[in-house]
């Protein structure tokens, strides 16, 4: 070969090799994908055909492994082949929206919130199976409480299998050791909170010789004060929305709400509330304030866990100290002295079945039968408590205690996301206080549970404009508590809210309410 020809040959090679590489690589990829699919099918065709079910769930700490024991037990129990894709819990809402816009739907979609605009749009477009009549065919699914079904419905029709949660959850959490020293009772009334906040803020219970304790720690979630409903209800007000003079109106238009704000304003003025409460996320309260002994009184859905640094430090000094010696909870009482609780909707989203993945009724029935097993007591115990003697052991036949808390958190806790009826499982407790708390949650007087009456109702003008409407109120609320605006300013914000679309929201909710309760 002449030198020139070699050069030309080299030149061609330079160009051809990358192209060949690219082509061959993509070729390999598709070939491999096809191959594995085939293997997969061959493996299972010899068995009794377990029902395949794909879904996406969120995890909060660590995604469970592929060979999770509970899932494989559940597969055996329901003759299923459950395939879960795990995604971080914090971004699940975003994941859900993106999933809805994609062409690849899993068989079952966890809807984070029934009122989610994308979900409602999907329903209108006919994207989901309506389940109202199907549920009656299944022994377990037909037993779901009517209140849950009502709250899980969209315009009176059911599209999800709701995930049951406790109705009674928001509570006051406080440092019981400080309260004992101060000689105060459980802060289960508004005055109780105020007195304790004052005592904690001005006294030096953390014994650091500094006046740095926040009397009453408030946090925000989605730019609203977290758990403020609990306070409003304890003042005798509505839980978000209520009925007055035949109209459905928001809580903040009532005098009780203004009373709550005045109370908070007074506390802020007296320095019992952190000046930075408006920029404190509710998730910061425990790590940033409680664990640093900067507060001992706050509103929450849960108690600090057993590995909380404050508790661990106390236990190092005196091993006999239990969690209730340091942290305690209280449910609020109303003006009449009886318990008055801002009830939750009782559901935490639920599972919907996409028509894009679930093509026909027979497939839907297959999937529903898996959920029927999940809904059973056996299924719920497996999902929430784990495998007996591997994950939990029964104490006095009353509650479940984790055999190894680390393993329990890793293998069982995330699967709880599948829990559609947690009330059927054993209480998971690691000490006395959890048993007490869970029992307190499961027992309540119906009349003291104030529900958000708009939970089963829809108003298009509210949901399409909710961002702006919420902004008006939350801004005024913070400014009022911080003393930046007075009562006139607050009333003006209410007027702004009405003219920004609130008036039509009230009208639509009232109509929907009348239709529902005819």
């Amino acid at each position, binding site marked *: 070969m002449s030198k020139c020809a070699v050069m030309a040959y080299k*030149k061609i090679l330079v*160009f051809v090799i990358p192209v060949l590489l690219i082509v061959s690589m993509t070729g390999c990829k598709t070939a491999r994908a096809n191959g594995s699919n085939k293997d997969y099918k061959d493996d299972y065709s010899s068995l009794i055909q377990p029902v395949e079910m794909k879904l996406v769930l969120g995890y909060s700490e660590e995604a469970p492994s592929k060979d999770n024991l509970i899932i494989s037990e559940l597969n055996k129990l329901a003759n299923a082949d459950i395939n879960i894709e795990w995604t971080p819990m914090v971004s699940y*809402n*975003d994941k859900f*929206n*993106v999933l*809805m*816009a*994609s*062409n690849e739907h899993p068989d079952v979609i966890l809807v984070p919130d029934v009122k*989610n*605009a*994308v979900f409602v*749009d*999907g329903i209108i*477009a*006919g*994207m989901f199976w309506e389940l109202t009549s199907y549920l009656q065919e299944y022994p377990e699914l037909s037993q779901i409480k009517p209140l849950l079904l009502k709250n899980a419905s969209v315009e009176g029709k059911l599209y999800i299998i709701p995930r049951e949660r406790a109705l009674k959850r928001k509570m006051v959490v406080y440092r019981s050791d400080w309260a004992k020293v101060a000689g105060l009772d459980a802060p289960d009334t508004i005055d109780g909170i105020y007195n304790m906040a004052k005592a904690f803020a001005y006294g030096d219970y953390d014994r650091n010789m500094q006046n740095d304790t926040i009397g009453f720690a408030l946090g*925000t979630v989605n*730019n*609203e004060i977290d758990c403020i409903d609990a306070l409003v209800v304890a003042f005798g007000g509505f839980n978000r929305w209520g009925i007055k003079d035949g109209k459905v109106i928001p809580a903040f238009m009532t005098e009780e709400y203004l009373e709550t704000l005045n109370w908070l304003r007074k506390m802020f003025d007296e320095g019992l509330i*952190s*000046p*930075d409460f*408006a*920029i404190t996320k509710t998730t910061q309260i425990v790590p940033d304030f409680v664990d640093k002994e900067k507060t001992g009184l706050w509103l929450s859905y849960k108690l600090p866990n057993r590995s909380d640094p404050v508790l661990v430090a106390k236990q190092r000094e005196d091993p006999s100290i239990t969690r209730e010696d340091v942290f305690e909870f209280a449910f609020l009482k109303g003006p009449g002295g009886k318990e008055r609780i801002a009830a939750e909707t009782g559901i935490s989203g639920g599972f919907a079945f996409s028509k*894009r993945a679930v093509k026909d009724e027979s497939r839907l029935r297959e999937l529903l039968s898996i959920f029927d097993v999940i809904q059973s007591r056996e299924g719920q115990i497996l999902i929430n408590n784990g495998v007996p003697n591997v994950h939990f052991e029964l104490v006095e036949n009353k509650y479940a205690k984790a055999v190894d808390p680390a393993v329990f958190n890793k293998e069982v806790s995330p699967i709880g996301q599948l829990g559609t009826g947690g009330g059927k499982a054993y209480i998971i407790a690691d000490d006395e206080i959890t048993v007490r708390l869970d029992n307190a949650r499961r027992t309540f007087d119906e009349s003291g549970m104030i529900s958000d009456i708009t939970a089963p109702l829809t108003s298009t003008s509210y949901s399409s404009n909710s*961002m*702006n409407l919420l*902004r008006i109120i*939350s*801004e005024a*609320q*913070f*400014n009022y508590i*911080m003393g930046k605006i007075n009562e006139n300013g607050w009333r003006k914000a209410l007027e702004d809210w009405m003219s*920004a679309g609130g008036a039509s929201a009230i009208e639509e909710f009232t109509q929907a309410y009348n239709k529902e309760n005819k």
Partner: protein
Amino acid sequence: MAEMSAGIKIKNKRKKQGYKLRQIKKDLWLYILVIPGLLHFIVFKYLPMWGILIAFKDYNAYLGFFGSPWVGFKQFTDFFTSPEFGRLFVNTLTISFYNLIFGFPAPVIMALMLNEIRKQWYKRTIQTLVYIPHFISWVIIASLTYTLFNSQGVINKYIAAMGNEAVPFLTSADTFRPLIIGQTIWKETGFGTIIYLAALAGIDVQLYEAAVIDGANRFKQFWHITLPSIKGTIITLLILRMGHILDNGFDQLFLMSNSLNRSVSEVFDVYVYTMGITRGAFSFSTAVGLFKSLIGIVLIYSSNRLAKAAGESGIF
């Protein structure tokens, strides 16, 4: 005569075509080298551009891209008539305007200052140090700001020690903009000096030597040699900057906003995120994004024209 000129024209055209082909042949490998870059732009920039069509549709995930109904300019009219529009527009423009006024000259000034430093090791060290903030993510910067500026933070402790009342930096609408501009300047000024320093390095040393002989002092040298030499660079960067006038940087604004400054902190970028990702109004937020880009293009073109009219070279 006419025929002849026509003939010449055709001949010229052919000649030109032949010339072009020859040119391509000559630099064939250069053209081939361009292909991956070109592919990148086609695949990742031009093809996804078809997505903007959903701004004119009522996109519904179930019906899909092709099935969703066309709605013309409905999304745009909805946006322009929404109560949020005015506020968003004013907020976005105000922050951009301040960023332009205070943020744009900062790297120029810093580059000029660095340029005057005689000790090379000292200049190099400073240069490296000022680049660092650029590589810190907004999340870190936001939490640093929160730590420094909260009511118990160092700044407020200092203010209190001076006997003044604490300033609610983070929870007030008045201090939001200064805080944002301050963050941007702190983060990006150092890195922004790179291009100017390169331009400064390209100035012919003989010019300075000649100026010194003519008796020019340092300020005169700066005013008559340094500044005119980097004027073109400044203008080019300014034009490019104009295209981003409605971009405020999502991360920063999203992280710094809270209930008490939302009246000034809500801008287009955050709005597109909330409407598109959180609320799932894909068509609507695409329309908002498209509107933003259109304004950007108009501004780039007009400022380029202005620059050319003023005798500068412009960017295209």
